[in-house]
Every structure is written in structure tokens, then in C-alpha cells.
């Protein structure tokens, strides 16, 4: 068997990585931004919904195969609701969902070389229960997860994540209104998409940054808007009721999008 032969196992895993990364490359990035009125998640979608409500204060977006995304989304929703019922709404945290739910599930599927892996990278956002405490988590296709504050993003290639995040942090949207935060997030999306479109990216971080600084992110977004549409959700602490998740209205999006199109 494969597991008895370390070399073949390592080779199988490496093949898996190549295969999954190749599948993910063209994916539409998902960007998460903390702004003045909560947390914003933004992506561009072809037709079907890409940003989802996992629980009262938790949003989920993903790059990858739609059915794999569905499986992960459903297991996040299942776990959140079982915890919420058995304990309380306050006990449902992103840390639990990622550490005990999504992370292990994705990792075991990835390691089991005779099963199909999840072809998906996931970004989750959690609105804190008090002032502050908001966070983002990313879960990669191999089960690796990271926690971020202020901003996080996932693209079709791993290099895109850092480029998008740095772009957002440089704009410091923490006190931005929704429209400005949306604009920063869309620019970051353009950068992430640009990274996915390149045949190869410089392995050196500084060279990568230099190459990215030459990229025209707005032009990438403008081109993408010919076939895709913007989807944005907000986790709004001022929202009435327990559920803080809402889709941003098309009119709110349109004013930003029309300025990019011009």
C-alpha cells in the first residue's frame, strides 16, 4: 500500500497538491475587510451565490469546486447549530468551527490519497460579541488554517492571499464607510485575480511585491465585471435581531461598480 512506501506517499501528496492548485488557479478570490460598521466580505460571482451565512455572526466564502464548497459549508452550518443548541449562541465561535470542524475534515480528506480531496480554500469571518474580537480564518485545501484580524483574503493561488491582505492593510479601511471599504476590497480582489492569471510568479517575496505593484488591479476588475457580478455581505453589529449577516443591496454595490466601469 501507499502508506507502507514513504516515497510513494510523498509523491502522491505532491501530485495531489499540483492537481488541486491547478484546479483552484482560476478561482474568484474572496476578500474580508474590517471596516467602520462591521465586517465586509466581497467576491465576484458568475451566477450562483458564493458568500454564505454560517451562523448569527459568521460568514463564509470559498474558492474552489462548488460541490466541495457546499460540503464544507454544510458541515460548518451543522456544527455551528449543534453547538448553538446544546450550549448557547454565545458559545458558537469561529475558532471551534475551524479547529474542530473544518480543519480536521479537510486535512483528513487531503491525506487520504484514495479519497478525493476538497478542492476548496475557505475564508470565514466572525463578528466579535463585544467591541473588538472580530476575526477572520482561512482554511486551505490541505487543512492548514490561519487566524487574522483586520483583513484576510483567499485567491486561486497562495501568493494572492498575502498580496491582497497587504493591499487592504495599507489602505487601513478600519474607519472607512461601506462604500470606501467596498472599493478597497474590490481593488484587492483585482490584485488577487491578477496573481492567479500569471503563468508564473517570482518566488522571492520582494520581487513578487514589485511585480504586483506594476499590476493594474482596477483594469483586472473592470475586465472581470464584463462577465461576473459583485457579491458582498456585511456582518453588521447594529443589525436588528440575533442574525447580523446581510447581503449588501445591489444599489449600494452599483454605485461603486459604475465608478470602476468608467
Amino acid at each position, binding site marked *: 500500500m501507499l502508506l507502507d512506501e514513504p516515497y510513494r506517499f510523498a509523491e502522491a501528496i505532491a501530485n495531489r497538491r499540483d492537481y488541486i492548485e491547478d484546479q483552484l488557479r482560476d478561482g474568484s478570490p474572496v476578500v474580508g475587510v474590517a471596516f467602520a460598521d462591521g465586517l465586509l466580505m466581497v467576491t465576484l460571482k458568475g451566477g450562483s451565490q458564493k458568500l454564505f*451565512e*454560517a*451562523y448569527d455572526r459568521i460568514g463564509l466564502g470559498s474558492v474552489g469546486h462548488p460541490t466541495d464548497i457546499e460540503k464544507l459549508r454544510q458541515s460548518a452550518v*451543522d456544527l455551528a*447549530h*449543534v453547538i448553538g*443548541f446544546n450550549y448557547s449562541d454565545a458559545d458558537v465561535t469561529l475558532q471551534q468551527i475551524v479547529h474542530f470542524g473544518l480543519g480536521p475534515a479537510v486535512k483528513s480528506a487531503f491525506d487520504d490519497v484514495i479519497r478525493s480531496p476538497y478542492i476548496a480554500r475557505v475564508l470565514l469571518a466572525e463578528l466579535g460579541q463585544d467591541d473588538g474580537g472580530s476575526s477572520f480564518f482561512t482554511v486551505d485545501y490541505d487543512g492548514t488554517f490561519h487566524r487574522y484580524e483586520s483583513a484576510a483574503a483567499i485567491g486561486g493561488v497562495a501568493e494572492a492571499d498575502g498580496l491582497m491582505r497587504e493591499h487592504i492593510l495599507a489602505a487601513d479601511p478600519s474607519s472607512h464607510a461601506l462604500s470606501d471599504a467596498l472599493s478597497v476590497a474590490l481593488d484587492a480582489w483585482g490584485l488577487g485575480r491578477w496573481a492567479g492569471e500569471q503563468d508564473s510568479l517570482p518566488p522571492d517575496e520582494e520581487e513578487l511585491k514589485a511585480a504586483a505593484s506594476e499590476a493594474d488591479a482596477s483594469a483586472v476588475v473592470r475586465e472581470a465585471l464584463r462577465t461576473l457580478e459583485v457579491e458582498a455581505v456585511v456582518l453588521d453589529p447594529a443589525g436588528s*435581531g440575533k*442574525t447580523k449577516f446581510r447581503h449588501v443591496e445591489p444599489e449600494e454595490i452599483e454605485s461603486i461598480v459604475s465608478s470602476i466601469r468608467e
Partner: protein
Amino acid sequence: MSDGGDFFDLLKSEGYQFPANVIAGVEGDGKGLPFHPTEGTTILALRYQDGVVVAGDRRATAGNAVLYDRADKVIPIDRHSVMAISGSPAMAFEIARILEHSFQYHRRRQLQEMSIEAKLRRLSLLIRDNLPMAVQGIGAVIPIFATYDTRGDVGRIYFYDALGAQFEVTDFATTGSGAAAIRGVMYYTNRWSGTPYPELSRDDAVGLSLRLLFTAAEYDSATGRYERSTDIPPTVKTITSEGQDDIGEDELRDLHTRFLD
């Protein structure tokens, strides 16, 4: 994990279960129990111009004892639905919690709102699952479910029997120990007062609900009455196309002054 998208099935697959076994030695009306089971008392719902008013007194009793005078028996389930409970609060709150999570879970997992028909069916099944408790006279839950039908643009009121049979009423419903004292009053005032309930304004509908609860308390010792000295107003909620809304305590005091003093 459950793949059917049903929250109660998911809970059961995680090991959750209702107290389904009949307790040996306990007879039909709770005789043989070493304690008096707690019960919530009077609740009512009536349609008015904009939707439905749902109200309940605040008392919970155990036998002849007043156990608690601040019970909330009108429980929000989702944006457009509330469940008012009489009978065993333990099982009723459990059922309300399952229902609330079921509706939210369905909306998030299936990416669509559960239909009113399905919501009613979920509640019906939960009440039926609770039958062993109800048969022993210790855990019966007899709720009123009120919701706003956004497709039909109308408020709807349903009540259930202990077996889970669901009945839609046109204008009003009341259950619980004080219901006997006011059911006839509701029929009478709806039919012959000159203004049928569905034509009442919000204030008149809330005022009428306060009067009805006061009347129930007059003839049923298990129903709590609003007293100035203790100042614990009943729970009153409205459900309209905009969703459900709590009537605040200050407004209830004002309406009490206007309609009852």
C-alpha cells in the same frame, strides 16, 4: 452528520433525545409524581388590522403554589413567528428552542426560508414526539403558533392539541387554565362588539388583550394579574409584515391606564 437538512434529525444523530419513556408509577394526570409539575397558564392571540397580537400572563404555577411571576410565555421563533405556550414550560421551551434552531438552520443550510406549511409541520411533529410526557400529565405542551404570511399578506394563528393536531383559526385563539374564562368573551366581542378583531387598531387590539388577561386572572387563580404594586406587565408582541415587535413595558403601562383604569 445528517444529510437531510433537518435540524431535529441532526440533533438526534448527535445523540439528543426527548424524554420518550413513560415513567413507571406515574398516572395520567401526574399522580404518583413526587412533585407538582410546573405549568404556564393563560395565553391568547388575535388578529388585528396589521397582523396578530400575541399575549400571555407572567405566572407559572406548581399545583397550588405560584412558582414564578415573571415567566415569558410568548417566545420569538423567527422574524415573523412567535410561539405562545401554556402547559409544561420545560418541554415548551425545549420545543421552542428546537423550532427556532430548525427554522434558522433550514434557512442557512438550504438557502431558502422554510414555508409556513413546513414550519407548522415541524411544530406538529415535535408535539407528537412529546406525547409520552403529555400522556403522563406532566409535560403536555399546548402552544399557539402565530405568524405573518408574507405571501398572502395576512397574519395567521394556529393552535394545537396535545397529540400535535394543528388547527388554524380565523380571528383568535386562547389556551391555558384561564382560557375557559375568556374564550366566550373573545367570541362575543369579536362577533357583536361592532368592530370585528381584524379591523381593530394596534392600540385597541393590545388594550383588548390586556383586558382579556385581566379577566382571566379574575376567574382563574393560576393566571397572574397585573398589579401596580408589583408592576410586572404581561408579555405582549405584535407580528406584522415588518416582523415581530415587543410592546415595551412603559407602553403597556400607558395602555393599561387607558383601557383598564
